[in-house]
């Protein structure tokens, strides 16, 4: 095999990468921190902190609407950030709306459709209005952020919720059935990667099913954008959301992608300054997208930080990051499978996945298990991970989740496995 650039990527210099994340040198008690909670929030490289500080100490000023030099520079930096982040997810700058995070992005879409239903927006918005009995589909594996906004929209409009079921192995069951996509379906919202199962779902297939039914395809890309090369236009979804703080970026910023057509038709959600072209005491006219959805002061420094995070990820190479994290996940799976009493959630074979595993330790409550890991300096997440219905499907209320990022090492995975193997005996549960 020749070593062409498209061949298997070279391995990463993880130690060099770790040096970019000062927090990874912290101690927990007398143990070095092993951070395996990046699916909740990832750590931030120094470069991203520096980019924000550089902006705040040299160019900070309100963007748009400013005639002064500082404002012009800040506006350029802000719009350059939009361009960088848009490119990172394969879209055009004016197809990228800044949000405060994925939850906000999904609420934006749900409320904007609710507004269309109430007759707001432009003439074209009526196409998005829901009728009582129309169906909104999501799946049994969603994060609450991709569930509750739709349940609330359904409750407000008389639409009906339907769920695509999951198989025991964590894959979605797309077999046609009354409970899935029909010609009453108007919205199909699904996650690219579940934050509990780590399985990469068949996005283009789901988008095609949605489009065949004349429905919108809405993607929750929170757990894919940080870990895989992602191109929203190639995935053929109409709308997609992601969060900065899960992709080595700052808190308080995220992105919403929308196709030109859909962003044009969607009525505004938040209203206020900088999204209008005309305001009187009688009413207002709105700017075109993306500004139409960006009311008020935007998260300027966070957006600039997020753009730097995308450059950092691209400098390492997303294929290489994905390969690194996949290798860690495989090592984790192999180890966890051997520990008596450990049950992995979503242990499907032959599927693409990101580097996280959730599991149950038989006879030990997840919070007790997590406490044992914590005493060894290992930070994992315990609970339902904002996916209560998915846990219920497995007969659980909680699980333990270990999730990796580019900065994790094999040695950390081994320390984690060693600690997990001691959990049941600590609590005197017989194997």
């Amino acid at each position, binding site marked *: 095999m020749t070593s062409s650039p498209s061949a298997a990527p070279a391995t990463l210099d993880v130690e060099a990468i770790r040096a970019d994340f000062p927090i990874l040198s912290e101690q927990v008690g007398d143990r070095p921190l092993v951070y395996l909670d990046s699916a909740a929030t990832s750590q931030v490289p120094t470069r991203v902190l520096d980019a924000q500080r550089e902006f705040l100490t040299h160019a900070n000023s309100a963007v748009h609407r400013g005639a002064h030099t500082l404002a012009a520079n800040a506006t350029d930096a802000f719009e350059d950030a939009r361009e960088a982040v848009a490119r990172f997810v394969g879209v055009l700058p004016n197809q990228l709306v800044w949000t405060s995070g994925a939850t906000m992005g999904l609420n934006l879409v749900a409320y904007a459709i609710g507004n269309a239903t109430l007759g707001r927006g432009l003439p074209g918005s009526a196409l998005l209005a829901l009728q009582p009995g129309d169906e909104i589909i999501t799946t049994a594996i969603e994060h609450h952020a991709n569930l509750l906004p739709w349940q609330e929209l359904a409750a407000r409009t008389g639409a009906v919720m339907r769920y695509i079921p999951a198989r025991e192995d964590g894959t979605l069951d797309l077999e046609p059935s009354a409970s899935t996509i029909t010609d009453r379906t108007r919205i199909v919202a699904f996650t690219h990667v579940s934050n509990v199962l780590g399985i990469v779902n068949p996005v283009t297939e789901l988008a095609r099913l949605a489009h065949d039914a004349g429905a919108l395809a809405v993607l929750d890309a929170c757990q894919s954008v940080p870990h895989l090369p992602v191109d929203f236009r190639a995935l053929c979804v109409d709308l997609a959301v992601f969060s900065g703080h899960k992709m080595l970026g700052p808190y308080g910023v995220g992105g919403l992608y929308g196709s030109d057509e859909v962003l044009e038709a969607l009525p505004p959600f938040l209203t206020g300054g900088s999204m209008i072209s005309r305001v009187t005491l009688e009413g207002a006219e709105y700017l075109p997208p993306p500004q139409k959805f960006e009311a008020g002061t935007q998260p300027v420094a966070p957006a600039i930080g997020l753009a730097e995070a995308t450059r950092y990820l691209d400098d390492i190479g997303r294929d290489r990051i994905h390969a690194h994290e996949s290798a860690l996940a495989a090592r984790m799976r192999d180890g966890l499978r051997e520990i008596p009493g450990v049950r992995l959630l979503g242990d499907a074979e032959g599927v693409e996945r990101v580097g996280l595993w959730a599991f149950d330790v038989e006879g030990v409550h997840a*919070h*007790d298990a997590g*406490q044992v890991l914590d005493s060894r300096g290992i930070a994992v997440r315990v609970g339902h991970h904002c996916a*209560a219905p998915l846990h219920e499907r497995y007969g659980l*209320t909680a699980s333990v989740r270990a999730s990796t990022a580019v900065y994790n090492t094999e040695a950390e995975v081994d320390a984690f496995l060693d600690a997990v193997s001691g959990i049941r005996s600590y*609590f005197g549960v017989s194997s």
Partner: protein
Amino acid sequence: MSDLDALYRELILDHSKHPQHFGLADEEGAHATSYQKNPVCGDEITLRARIEDDGDTVRDVTWEGRGCSISQASASMLSDLVVGMTRTEAVAFVDGFREALRSRGAIELDENTYADAAALSGVSKFSARVKCAMLAWVALEDALGRA
């Protein structure tokens, strides 16, 4: 003793493996049942307090629910201890417990007063687990207020 062992004292593990007064007693005489949920983890408890005919003495406390070992042990210990207390004593008992648990390690529970439950002192240093230890106690407080 490691921090972990200070949290999971032997007594706690014992109670959690063999929870006392588990299973709700009949709704006989003056009684009230409280359902409480720990919002952090979603775990829940249903606790029933029954009062003697004097209208003031705790006759018994029974409970059902699921949760971590801390919450199960705490419910077990509590229901052992409050039987026979007056309402006023029980409320003071809960208050003292809450104060210690919220003290971030500053207050130790007195073994003479709190007996087995004094083993829960270590929880107060683990702020994420304080709600686990409090769950049954909040339920008792609520039930007594309505029994």
